[in-house]
């Protein structure tokens, strides 16, 4: 478990807050919530691209955490435990809605997904000029399966073997989908940049 950290606004360390939350202390629950709310909510929002759904999932993730907090023994970091729970809550919701979490295993790319591979000059380059708002919009426009893998790997920092376990795919599929997600984002960002440049 990582070392205890000072919580915002009061002198309760995370370790103390966890122990007090196990005893049913309201202040401790609230402190833990405020410490981790941004990370959990941002994950839910990116995955669903919907603020109401993200708030519901955030609420559910924290409720599950608090219901099980008595069982937390400290074998892993608390934040890791919470985060894994939040990811599971989101993925379960996506599965319930019938949204494909990850596209089927593909050995070959489909025709519409194949990007031009011939060497050639790119008219618009991205390097050093990625607008964060544009990136957020582009992520929202990704197909759900690509978005899930991209968020778990590039935003949340999960490794491919962890993603494979979480979403139920192979490591190779996870790598492939991540690459396609990044390629798709590159295409969307370039289009957005070219449109901006073309405006008078």
């Amino acid at each position, binding site marked *: 478990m990582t070392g205890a950290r000072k919580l915002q606004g009061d002198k309760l360390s995370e370790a103390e807050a966890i122990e007090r939350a196990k*005893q*049913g*202390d309201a202040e401790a*629950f*609230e402190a833990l919530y405020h410490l981790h709310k941004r990370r959990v909510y*941002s994950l839910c929002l990116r995955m669903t691209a919907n603020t109401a759904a993200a708030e519901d999932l955030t*609420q559910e993730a924290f409720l599950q955490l608090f219901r099980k907090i008595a069982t937390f023994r400290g074998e892993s970091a608390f934040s890791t435990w919470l985060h894994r729970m939040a990811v599971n809550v989101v993925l379960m919701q996506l599965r319930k809605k019938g949204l494909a979490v990850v596209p089927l295993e593909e050995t070959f790319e489909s025709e519409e997904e194949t990007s031009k591979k011939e*060497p050639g000059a790119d008219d618009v380059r991205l390097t050093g000029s990625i607008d*964060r708002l544009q990136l957020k919009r582009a992520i929202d426009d990704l197909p759900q399966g690509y978005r899930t893998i991209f968020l778990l790997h590039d*935003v949340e920092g999960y490794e491919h073997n962890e993603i494979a376990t979480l979403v139920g795919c192979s490591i190779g599929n996870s790598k492939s989908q991540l690459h396609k997600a990044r390629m798709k984002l590159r295409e969307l960002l370039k289009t957005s940049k070219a449109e901006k440049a073309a405006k008078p």
Partner: protein
Amino acid sequence: MSCEEFQRILPELEDTYSLEQEQHLKTCSHCSALVADLNAIAREALLLADIEEPSPRVWNRIEIALRQEGLIRSAQPAAPTLRKARWNPIWLVPVAAIFLVIFGLLLYQRGGVEPQTAHVLHSTPLPSLPEGVSAEQAELLKVVAAQTPSLRASYESEFRAVNAYIRDAELAVRRNPNDQISQQYLTNAYEQRAMVYEMAMDHGLQ
């Protein structure tokens, strides 16, 4: 190595390249631009991890649920989002009545005192109500904006949050009318709304 060969294995590479692959990147501007762009996207994505903030009602709903499930076992419910009440709940009704009277007097007085403020209040076309606030709160927000424009958005947000808190607490009481904790919650919610009114009035009267 051709571009096709390089791009076919690119998904597997994860920032580690063989000599042949590095050589290709040095000599092919197209593939090196591609790799640079993909890496830039990955780097920028890292910064998105925890920048969004949920609304205060998320915690309110969590706390209500925890209390109803008996997971919170403290003696007194804590004031969830705003600072603690400064008065006994029994004074809530007369205090709220006083605020309404003062508010009405203030609107009456505004009619002939400050031409600029009157212009803001009366000549501006009445917009549709901001979402999540009552007509009365919207009028109070206009008074605040006339004195301290920079605080309007903040108070609008506070009113929305506390109105949502009251709705959630009322729902909890309807579901469990005999539950004292839900009733206390509703009282806390009304107290918080009164506090927001008081603070907004303070700024409106400055």
